């Protein structure tokens, strides 16, 4: 189950990386993003919320997805699972804030940004499940030995 979750997260991280890479390219190339909602994407991409301390949020997203991917490639363990969870928590929190700004400050929705927010939400759900499932009561060799021993004695 944990291995499957990791695979699903890798696919999600690749998708997120692709979306963020496209938005970063759009930002630096000065082209208008492909958008079915007229100029909504341009409005969001050129708004003052599209930068954080002068750095395009698309680039921050790109680095974030790359970091998540890095943590997924790290050897399976408590630390790597925690790192993934921490990164997705930050990504989810900031995505939620940017979606709030789209809805209530910019009054325009960028479908690329929404896709990224959805991907980040799914990544967080998977990362949380992966962390919690990994910490569940593991089948211990002591436990099986005692029960087998006990039943063995009873049936003898």
């Amino acid at each position, binding site marked *: 189950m944990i291995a499957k979750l990791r695979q699903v997260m890798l696919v999600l991280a690749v998708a997120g990386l692709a979306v963020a890479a496209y938005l970063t390219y759009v930002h630096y*190339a*000065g*082209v*208008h993003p492909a958008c079915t909602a007229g*100029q909504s994407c*341009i*409005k969001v*991409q*050129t*708004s*003052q*919320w599209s*930068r*954080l*301390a002068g750095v395009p949020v698309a680039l921050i997203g790109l680095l974030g997805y790359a970091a998540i991917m890095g943590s997924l490639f790290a050897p399976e363990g408590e630390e790597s699972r*925690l790192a993934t*969870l*921490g990164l997705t*928590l*930050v990504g989810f*929190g*900031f995505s939620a*804030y940017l979606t709030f*700004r789209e809805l209530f*400050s*910019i*009054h325009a929705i960028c479908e690329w940004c929404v896709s990224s927010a959805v991907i980040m939400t799914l990544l967080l759900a998977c990362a949380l499940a992966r*962390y919690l499932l990994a*910490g569940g*009561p593991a089948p*211990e060799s*002591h*436990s099986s030995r*005692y029960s087998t021993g*006990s039943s063995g004695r009873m049936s003898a």
Partner: protein
Amino acid sequence: MASRTQQKAQARAQRVAEERAQAQRARRQSRLRILAGVVALAATVVAVAVAISAGSASSAPKTTSVAAKHVSATVNRLLGGIPESGNTLGSPHAKVTLTEFGDLKCPICRAFALGPEATLISKDVRAGKVKIVYRSLCTATCGGPQPGAFSTQQAAAMAAGLQGRAWYYIELFYHLQGDENTSYVNPGFLDGLARLVGGLHYGKWLHDRSSPQLAAAVSSDQRSAHALGFSGTPSVLVQGPRGARTIPYLGNYQTYESAIKAVEG
């Protein structure tokens, strides 16, 4: 009756089970503490990012800051030495005329001004190949909290044009543009921009900016834009000896360059 050995084994099994349960409880608690720590750390990082983002966006643009002085220097470097007349930037003999319909409060116009238009000015306008005419079309301002400011802000730029300084004012406005959903366009902001424009006679500009002729010119620009079928900003009309092209959206430099090549003789 259980034998002594069996009793001992049972007691041992019970003790081991209790120890194991205790260890599991401790491990679970420790993991929950770590999880809480990670959540708190993530929340802190997000809170800092949000504070930086909100802080930089909510502050009204300042025309007296050191940053504004740097912006002024950047604009001077971009426009210095290029002829200006009224709302036209570039040589009057340029074969191609690029007319931009813009709204000074529109963030997409800002992206155009700081992006492809800056390249057009540096390359094509400076070379004398193209001249750019600025005209007004209300979009972001009319959809924002102070639609009445549109005529005032656009006329303020046109008033600078009466002294051959419209483009300095337009560029400064775009560079120092605030949040389109706030009412930052006020006399203090407009005056501050004027004071950043080198060589502008402030008293004359202040008098001219309330001229009814300029307000009428802004209205006339809007009618022209609608007649061309433009409804968004920046919309661009490129005219030359071989015809005209319209670009009613934000393109990249190549978009405008292709249109220029198509119409120049």
